[in-house]
């Protein structure tokens, strides 16, 4: 049996070029297994050697064209997704953009994804009962008069807007008629509100024409009575032994403050929101996770390191930038590289105006002018020692 401190020393000595995290993991596993199988010192040494060798095998050599490989590795599976373009699959009753459209959305860093969704996890207190989960969902779910109404009519004769509230939905939403009346009264000073049982009648204070009434009605219909802006329907789903809330629409900043929500696990699929609320590193992780999930959904597997490279490129400036003309390619240092991509003339003219210099450091510009590209063997610079030491006499 080898003591812990010897293992520690061995790991420190033999695996010194491994990253901290890996070394720790190796150490922990070694302790676990040396206890289990009574490993000898030589065996432990052999294991460490093996690990170090595997690690070095997994490293990318300097000069490797990782970007090209990434493009191919993501591009090829993407061609298999194109057939499923605009395919929607329901998570419960919520629509989610999947497949190629979603990948494009992520890579283009769209400000508003077409189907924003939040996955809200709950704190210890609300996690385990569907009742309590519903309670939290009520706080989040955006409720408008429209969503509560059984019928809405614009009575032109009496210049009234009559809304018949569905009592069942009212009950579910946790609102009361009085509360609704107060809410609307506070937000619409020009309106006169009257409630009768489950009916709400809205009139203009000063009788005007029908179009004014119609405009008011439209506004009142859409007025948020409760919940977070941007959030629509919520669905409660059981995940393992706890309940989680899925929302249509996303308002990440606000949802984290809602009592009952576990802010540490709650997430959204809107990457810009994550960048804003949690910071750029979180956004990077979100990009990776979203792409991996979308790929997995389609039954495709891409090595995470390719996706990590994409996410790194998108976030390395501290803001989320799209890949393409307006993002990464557009901010390349080399004029020729930019001109080779899109809007050639404009870039060349602009560069000429500014007197830009191109040091020809990148790949694209060297391809363009017909030089070896600084990648792979092209990046190696040779030097020869002269004179050669006495040559071995032959003949």
């Amino acid at each position, binding site marked *: 049996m080898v003591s812990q401190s010897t293992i520690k020393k061995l790991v420190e000595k033999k695996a010194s070029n491994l990253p901290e995290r890996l070394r720790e993991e190796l150490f922990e596993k070694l302790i676990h297994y040396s206890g289990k199988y009574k490993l000898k010192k030589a065996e432990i040494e052999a294991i460490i050697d093996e690990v170090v060798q595997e690690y070095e095998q997994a490293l990318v050599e300097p*000069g490797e064209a990782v970007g090209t490989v990434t493009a191919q590795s993501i591009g090829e599976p993407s061609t298999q997704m194109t057939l499923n373009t605009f395919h929607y699959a329901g998570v419960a009753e919520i629509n989610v953009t999947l497949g190629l459209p979603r990948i494009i959305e992520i890579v283009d860093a769209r400000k508003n994804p077409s189907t924003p969704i939040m996955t809200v996890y709950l704190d210890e207190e609300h996690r385990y009962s569907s009742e309590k989960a519903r309670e939290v969902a009520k706080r989040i779910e955006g409720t408008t008069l429209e969503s509560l109404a059984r019928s809405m009519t614009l009575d032109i004769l009496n210049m009234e807007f009559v809304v018949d509230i569905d009592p069942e939905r009212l009950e579910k939403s946790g609102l009361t008629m009085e509360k609704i009346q107060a809410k609307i009264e506070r937000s619409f000073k020009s309106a006169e509100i009257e409630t009768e049982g489950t009916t709400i009648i809205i009139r203009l204070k000063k009788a005007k024409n029908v179009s004014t009434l119609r405009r008011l009605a439209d506004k009142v219909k859409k007025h948020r009575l409760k919940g977070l802006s941007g959030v629509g329907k919520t669905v409660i789903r059981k995940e393992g032994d706890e309940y989680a809330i899925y929302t249509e629409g996303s308002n990440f900043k606000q949802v984290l403050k809602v009592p009952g929500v576990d802010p540490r696990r709650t997430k959204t699929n809107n990457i810009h929101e994550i960048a804003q609320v949690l910071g750029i590193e979180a956004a990077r992780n979100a990009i990776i996770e979203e792409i991996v999930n979308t790929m997995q959904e389609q039954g495709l597997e891409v090595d995470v390191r390719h996706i990590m490279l994409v996410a790194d490129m998108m976030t390395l400036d501290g803001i989320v930038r799209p890949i393409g003309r307006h993002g990464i390619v557009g901010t390349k240092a080399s004029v020729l590289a930019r001109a080779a991509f899109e809007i050639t003339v404009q870039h060349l003219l602009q560069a000429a105006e500014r007197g830009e210099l191109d040091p020809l450091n990148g790949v694209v510009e060297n391809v363009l002018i017909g030089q070896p590209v600084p990648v792979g*063997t092209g990046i190696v610079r040779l030097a020869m020692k002269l004179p050669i030491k006495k040559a071995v006499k*032959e003949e």
Partner: protein
Amino acid sequence: MFRYTRFEKARIIGARALQIAMGAPVLINVPEGASPLDAAIVEFEKGIIPITVIRPS
């Protein structure tokens, strides 16, 4: 430990093979009938090629 990447290895052997092909003396005994490339590979493995790489600092 200093190790050449596979790109560096290719470039060094390539450059050396070219020299040998153009008539440079071989620095070590090579097997009969070896091509310049074979000779360069043998030299590289022995570590006697007088060429190294400049790595960006």
